[in-house]
């Protein structure tokens, strides 16, 4: 993967500018300050969750890791006992706890090690089995593995990542946009406060443009 499709673009450079309001600054500041430790999950569950997150949304080694497990942990702490549940699955918090234990049980049964100690290939194979409805360990209880993978794993983990400014900068999203909004609406039109894509031959220009994003 190209590490920098938008060379030098950083959504956070706009933090003090016209695209961010106080409400947004408060929310993002809190998100960036979340401590990377479990408050909802047990230590065992947390370690499995961290390993799972690294397989679902792998992150580059050359920058600080977005703490995906911590975001899911806090979300479950706040409203894991509510929301919509799909029969026969329990509410999200309980479903997550059950599923993390079951993922570990599957790893132990198949490979005699915890999920977090599996090599990447074996971990991915186990997750593919979950996605395809092939897991059957009794530890799953009321949590159908295939349904959980589709409705929780593939929703909650990407939602945690793409809620982070690092991810917005990575994909060239404009990010927060109030009160200024946008002006140039047509195709191939870029407002000066939007990410410039580093196309072949113009990376230097894109870098310059992105350094002027405010």
């Amino acid at each position, binding site marked *: 993967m190209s590490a920098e499709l938008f060379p030098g673009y950083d959504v956070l450079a706009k933090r003090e500018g016209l695209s961010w*309001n106080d409400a947004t600054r408060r929310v993002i500041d809190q*998100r960036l300050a979340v401590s990377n430790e479990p408050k909802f999950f047990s230590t065992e569950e947390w370690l499995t969750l961290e390993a799972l997150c690294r397989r679902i*949304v792998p992150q580059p080694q050359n920058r600080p890791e977005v703490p995906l497990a911590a975001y899911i942990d806090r979300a479950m702490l706040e409203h894991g006992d509510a929301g919509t549940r799909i029969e026969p699955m329990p509410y999200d918090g309980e479903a997550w706890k059950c599923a993390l234990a079951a993922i570990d049980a599957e790893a132990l049964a198949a490979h005699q090690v915890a999920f977090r100690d599996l090599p990447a290939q074996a971990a991915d194979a186990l997750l593919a089995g979950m996605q395809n409805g092939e897991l059957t360990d009794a530890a799953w209880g009321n949590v159908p593995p295939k349904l959980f993978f589709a409705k929780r794993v593939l929703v909650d983990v990407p939602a945690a990542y793409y809620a982070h400014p690092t991810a917005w900068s990575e994909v060239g999203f404009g990010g927060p946009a109030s009160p200024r909004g946008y002006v140039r609406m047509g195709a191939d039109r870029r407002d000066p406060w939007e990410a410039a894509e580093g196309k072949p031959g113009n990376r230097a220009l894109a870098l310059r443009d992105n350094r002027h994003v405010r």
Partner: protein
Amino acid sequence: MFAEGLPRARAGRAPDVFTPGGWIPMKEYSTDEEVDFAIIGTGAGGGTLAARLAESGFSVVAFDAGAYWRPLDEFASDETEQNKLYWLDRRICEGENPLQMGGKNSGKSVGGSMVHFAMVSLRFRPEWFKSRSVMGYGADWPLDWREMWHYYTKIERALSISGPVKYPWGPRRPRYPYRAHEVNAAGMLLAQGAEALGYRWTPTPLATVSAPRGKSPPCVYRGFCRFGCSTNAKQSTLIVFLPRAIAAGAEIRDLAMVGRIEMNNAGRATGVHYHRENAWHFQRARHVVVAGYAIETPRLLLNSATNRYPAGLANSSGLVGKYLMTQSNQAVFGKMAQEVRWYKGPPSLAITEHWNYEDKNKDFFGGYCWMGQGPLPIEWASIQTGARGLWGEKLRTEMMSYNHQVGLKMVGEMLPELRNTVTLADELDQYGIRVARITYSWGENDKRLINHALSQMRMSLEAVGAVDIFEQTDDTNHLAGTARMGFDRESSVVNADCRAWDIPNLWVCDGSVFPTTGGVNPSLTIQAIALRTADRIKEMAQRGEL
């Protein structure tokens, strides 16, 4: 649960939605005072009705389970934070196609779902009010389309809808009050595709202003519309009708969850029990209007069962909670060579209603439209994972094309079916009230309509040169049904005036009353019906028929 804090609309004042930290004076009623109307829900139905009834001189208290937000200083540009606008209390879904509850169909906030709706403001096709007798499916409405045309015009003016001078489909309608918005790249690609297929298209009529209006500035195209408008350009109930209601003497009670409607021995409702600030209270009222939308409305009617009404209130037909409808919301996505940057502007700036008005060569009943799309990163990731099952490096690689993506998303009619229901589960929510069990399965007609739409939208994307095209086959959105209006007490819950057949001082005013749901977003029709209901109540009061 999201931390909701304490009620704000109290002690003679309510939040001023137009001023950071500001307040406006608000009349307050004692719980002992028998008010003319207790309205449950302040969204498109309840909020609009509250304003019109108060302006007609009735005393009104409107309850909402959600918080009273001030958009200017409390709405972040953030998909996650703004979950605070959605109904995320306990609910259970089941069936062959369990509904996805949340941002697309359930608000929990003063102003209801209009606080986060996509502002798409469309009229029904006239024939849909006679679906059964003219089109051969569903059920007829007891409303005449010409009367509805009158109320559509009124609500379009009340919301200063921005739209085209001439709308391409249906009978003549006045030009929209405000000019259409500039169509973004995503919308122009819809237009090119439609033209290639020989279909008409138009800038979408939207409830966000294209020029200043009162305290609303013109839309700045920030693109977070479905997460609450932080500039007040959006003409939601929160900023249009609730300030009007309060100015006319209505009281809004925020963070007030109504759990039961009280009945007397004479078969009349006497008021509502509601939970606020950790205690249950009772408000006396001469009339009760339920406006909680298609899940909470039947839930409340069913939870209000008594010995005399063991199956719930207004339910002698057995139809409360039946004929739940959603709308198909499938989509086709692809990649363009050029940068589209679909996050700019309202998500649905262009539309074609071709297949709502064309009846030839269909192997299904009903219609659908499609609109341009602009999902923000979290939603876009969920589409990549939900529709394609992507994860790992594949997911992150695909996400890198975000600025080049284009998409078309349908709003399609699903047929009313008796088996699609809202019933009560044994589980309790945080107020101790039994939660809703929502059962949904698509019918064969629904599937045929969806397949037709997917192939049409794919052709449109192919026509503009999109590549890596894929379909999102499982999405649904708006709700309707569960307290349908009709011509008699055997086959419906309320009459054309939204008045319960069984209980003369009980009313339902929201999308629950829809007998069919049509192929367009429902909010404008809900509001048009609310305006009509308010007029009818005033007329009946003058004649002594209340």
